[in-house]
């Protein structure tokens, strides 16, 4: 049987792509952000995941408002990145794991999560940049299964629903009859708001509480409605839903091996957590 070895949650701001391209990792603005990742890479080198289930939100590369799935699962042999409109360089393609994709699709629908399935799927910066942060040589040592959550157009799935979706993903992975080590990642957030006269909204107190809750009280954020979460964390801070899906997929007990929090990257409070499964 497959085993979930742990989870990583991280922010995914487009500007990170520009910084990687311009090699600004040691620039004083960027260093506190990039310095968060080497401990995660060291862990990955010894933990050796075979497959990565990566939960993110598409920002208008693969999906448009003509057809907007609430939950979508990739089932492609390979996933490509593409121009998102502002010229950050594209990254090499990512090998898919169609066996796990279809196993997850079967298991999730049986579990009453009626996801959209995608045999072709472009992956945007929310997928590619976290990959480049974990594996800077961009020679991907894992196969991937992308999972997309709608955070573009309300109504979005609630925090509680997202957590339960994550639990269903966890059950799907654990019932996969393959001797494979699976890593789960959720990307987005933390607090930020790009639009409106409240642009620039950041809520450090909430973010730090939320990060602590991931370890000790993973359902803590599910007490809030999405409107409350937008009020607390900003219109794009709601991307913390991806962290909740990822956390839901992990065992009840996890150990925090590493975390980082830095304000600001672009307009965003950036967060990073590495959690290892216990029990």
């Amino acid at each position, binding site marked *: 049987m497959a085993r979930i070895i742990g989870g990583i949650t991280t922010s995914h701001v487009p500007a990170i792509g520009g910084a990687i391209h311009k090699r600004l990792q040691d620039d004083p603005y960027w260093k506190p952000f990039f310095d968060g990742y080497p401990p995660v890479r060291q862990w990955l080198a010894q933990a050796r995941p075979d497959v990565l289930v990566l939960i993110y939100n598409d920002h*208008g590369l693969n999906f448009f408002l003509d057809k907007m799935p609430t939950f979508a699962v990739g089932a492609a042999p390979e996933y490509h990145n593409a121009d998102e409109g*502002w010229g950050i360089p594209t990254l090499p393609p990512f090998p898919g794991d169609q066996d796990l994709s279809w196993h997850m699709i079967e298991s999730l629908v049986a579990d009453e999560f009626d996801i959209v399935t995608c045999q072709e799927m472009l992956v945007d910066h929310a997928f590619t940049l976290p990959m480049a942060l974990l594996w800077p040589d961009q020679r991907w040592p894992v196969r991937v299964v992308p999972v997309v959550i709608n955070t573009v157009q309300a109504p979005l799935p609630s925090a509680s629903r997202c957590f339960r979706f994550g639990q269903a993903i966890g059950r799907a992975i654990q019932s996969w009859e393959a001797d494979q080590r699976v890593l789960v990642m959720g990307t987005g957030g933390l607090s930020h708001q790009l*639009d409106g*006269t409240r642009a620039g909204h950041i809520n450090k107190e909430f973010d730090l509480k939320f990060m602590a809750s991931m370890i000790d009280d993973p359902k803590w954020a599910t007490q809030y409605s999405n409107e*409350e979460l937008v009020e607390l964390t900003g219109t794009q801070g709601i991307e913390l839903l991806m962290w909740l899906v990822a956390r839901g997929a992990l065992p009840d007990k996890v150990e925090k091996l590493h975390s980082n929090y830095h304000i600001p990257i*672009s307009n965003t409070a950036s967060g990073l957590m590495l959690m290892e499964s216990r029990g």
Partner: protein
Amino acid sequence: MKAGKRQIPGTTIFDGAQARKGYALNKMCFSFNDAANREAFLRDEDAYCAKYGLNPQQREAIRARNVLQLIEAGGNAYYLAKFAGIFGLDMQDIGAQQTGMTKEQFKAMLVAARG
């Protein structure tokens, strides 16, 4: 916005009403994923906006390069970012414009959130 929906100061939730209102505008911005379309827009802005059927409010907001007007016209932040990208504007430029600050003031506000 319908009665009973939560009002968050300085914030527009992109819901069904906004998605209906802003469809043409967002569809045009979505097309800017493609470099050839960005060039076509710059070559003949009027023709490009007409092709997507922008209404007068949307056309004026595009002409003004005004983010708050674009949101009012139904624009979604993720698609509008692709429009801003044509002019090389980053998120601090956009934030400064919407809050009436200089870019330096806006960046200082973000740093101040460290507490």
